[in-house]
């Protein structure tokens, strides 16, 4: 189905995009006057200590050489310093946080399950909700349901996630006290408490995103239902359920899959705002901590990881086209 040549071009393109993201991030972060060595060197910071810290971290080299060292570290690992105090960062090494004394990849790995739980759960909810409401609104165009759905989706598009989240906490968490606020339990510890603790963040994130899907599905559905093949299907006596569920929905799914893939990809890189509102210890939280601690290696690692997810999401979306739409099958 997919030729080797296409796959190779595609993977090569992805790698090139990532390289550019890495390069831009690196250049911006390292050219901006902010010296991690100075912050790590302690007080009082003598010039000798500063030079030692720079050498240890590898900041004594020119920036382009640092970039090459960084890239090399991804494939071969890196060792900072030498002798008894040396720190080894095994391949793939995306940097070492001197602030948290940890491998950046380990830091990301620790936080990833939280963000994945949040993003994937919310995505399932918003796709089901958005597509479901969109289809019903389209089938009963101009009914009261359609109007309410459209009105709610305009509010959903316009209200920032953090505002909806805070209102949710205020009303459902504090005033009515029906859902817990601000505690995350790992899935492996207790799946029920894991899900219960994430109910509110899921709903809030889903509400904010579902709005786009309602509009998209509704427009697409209305357009599709007036097409000739729908008339043909009806004329040959296909049940209305099958017409909607199989013939029409398949056309609607294509843009929905595109949007879901891209949004999920960027959300997995750190649902920064939602995590801040609900105090969830995910990737977004790691990023904000790195911002406050001026932890450059972690910032760089998080940005690259987020870029990686976006690129992968793009590729997955493209591949899924072939499955959903035979016309777009890649050769």
């Amino acid at each position: 189905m997919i030729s080797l040549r296409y796959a190779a071009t595609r993977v090569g393109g992805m790698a090139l995009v990532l390289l550019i993201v890495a390069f831009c991030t690196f250049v911006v972060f390292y050219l901006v006057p902010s010296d991690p060595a100075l912050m790590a060197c302690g007080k009082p910071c003598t010039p000798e200590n500063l030079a030692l810290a720079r050498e240890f971290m590898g900041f004594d080299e020119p920036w382009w050489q640092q970039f090459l060292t960084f890239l090399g570290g991804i494939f071969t690992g890196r060792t900072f310093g030498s002798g008894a105090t040396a720190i080894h960062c095994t391949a793939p090494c995306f940097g070492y946080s001197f602030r948290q004394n940890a491998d950046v990849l380990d830091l990301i790995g620790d936080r990833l399950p939280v963000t994945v739980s949040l993003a994937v759960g919310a995505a399932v909810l918003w796709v089901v909700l958005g597509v479901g409401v969109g289809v019903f609104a389209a089938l009963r165009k101009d009914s009261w349901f359609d109007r309410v759905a459209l009105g709610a989706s305009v509010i959903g598009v316009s209200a920032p996630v953090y505002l909806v989240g805070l209102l949710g906490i205020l009303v459902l968490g504090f005033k009515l006290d029906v859902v817990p606020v601000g505690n995350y339990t790992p899935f492996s510890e207790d799946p029920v408490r894991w899900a219960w603790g994430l109910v509110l963040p899921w709903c809030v994130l889903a509400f904010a995103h579902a709005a786009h899907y309602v509009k998209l599905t509704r427009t697409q559905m209305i357009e599709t239902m007036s097409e000739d093949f729908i008339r043909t299907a009806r004329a040959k006596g296909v049940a209305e359920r099958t017409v909607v569920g199989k013939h029409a929905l398949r056309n609607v799914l294509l843009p929905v899959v595109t949007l879901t893939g891209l949004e999920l990809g960027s959300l997995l890189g750190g649902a920064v705002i939602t995590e801040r509102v609900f105090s969830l210890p995910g990737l977004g939280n790691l990023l904000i901590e790195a911002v406050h601690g001026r932890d450059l290696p972690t910032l760089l690692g998080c940005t690259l990881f987020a870029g990686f997810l976006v690129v992968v999401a793009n590729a997955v979306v493209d591949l899924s086209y072939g499955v959903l739409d035979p016309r777009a099958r890649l050769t």
Partner: protein
Amino acid sequence: MSTPVARSVPAAIRSVLARDRWALAGTVTVVVIGLVAIFADVLTAIEGHDPYTYDASALDPASGLPAGPFGGVSGEHWFGVEPLTGRDLFAIVVHGARTSFLIGLAATLVSIGLGVLIGAAAGYLGGWVDRVIVWSADVFLGFPYLVFMIALGAVVPVEFPRALLLIVVIGFFGWPSTARIVRAQVLTLKERNFVKAARTLGASPWEVFRTELLPNLWGPVLVMATLSVPGKVGLEAALSFLGVGVLPPTPSWGRSISAAIDWVAVDPAFLLFPGLALFGVTWGFNALGDGLRDALDPKWGRKP
């Protein structure tokens, strides 16, 4: 392939406002908050407070909460005061409108300007210029820009003017989506006879762009601009919410909402006023933009 409905932009705006109640309501909201932003100084002078002065007398000394019910709303403090500092919330919200509008509109101008120029160049010049631009747009759309902006906000020194940084960064990352749409429009326009005629008469690409293409792009450009303002305003608020946007003490809705997190259980009014203002602007621009889109070209903006 139907060509867009030919209708002048002012006529389209008039007809939208006359027919579409939601678009009209959105316009009124935007205009009111815009006027508030322009006359922020006058309004705060009438009320008699500025957004910077701490006022312990407006607070309950025991808890640091605003004195009086509902966040201390009174004839003295129209929206109440901020917990712990006693700064006047009305003044903060009104001056926050200024921050929001300045950054939102200027960033939109940057991204639409860049997008139109780049997109038109890609569509009209074609060839390798087109390929490079389309490809870089793809790279840009694959850029984790929120994460990048947060990280950038952290490393750029405080001496650099924050509003300018936000305008440039938010504006710069916005060009690809505009460029794509403009490119598609220009590809169609390029084949029309009046563009061909201009080219045959020896007009340079810049002249063709200015006199032939641009007048035909105003409609979609206006719709794109209107619909992209809420995103930009929201981004500024989100970055300020996360502590990497405008720096204190410059008032910002996002930062006030962020500060309100810790008080939401005891002082919901502190969340309500900046939150409503932000929602109002976002909703207003969205409603107006949706209406304009429907009026200027019913087919435009729908992706296949």
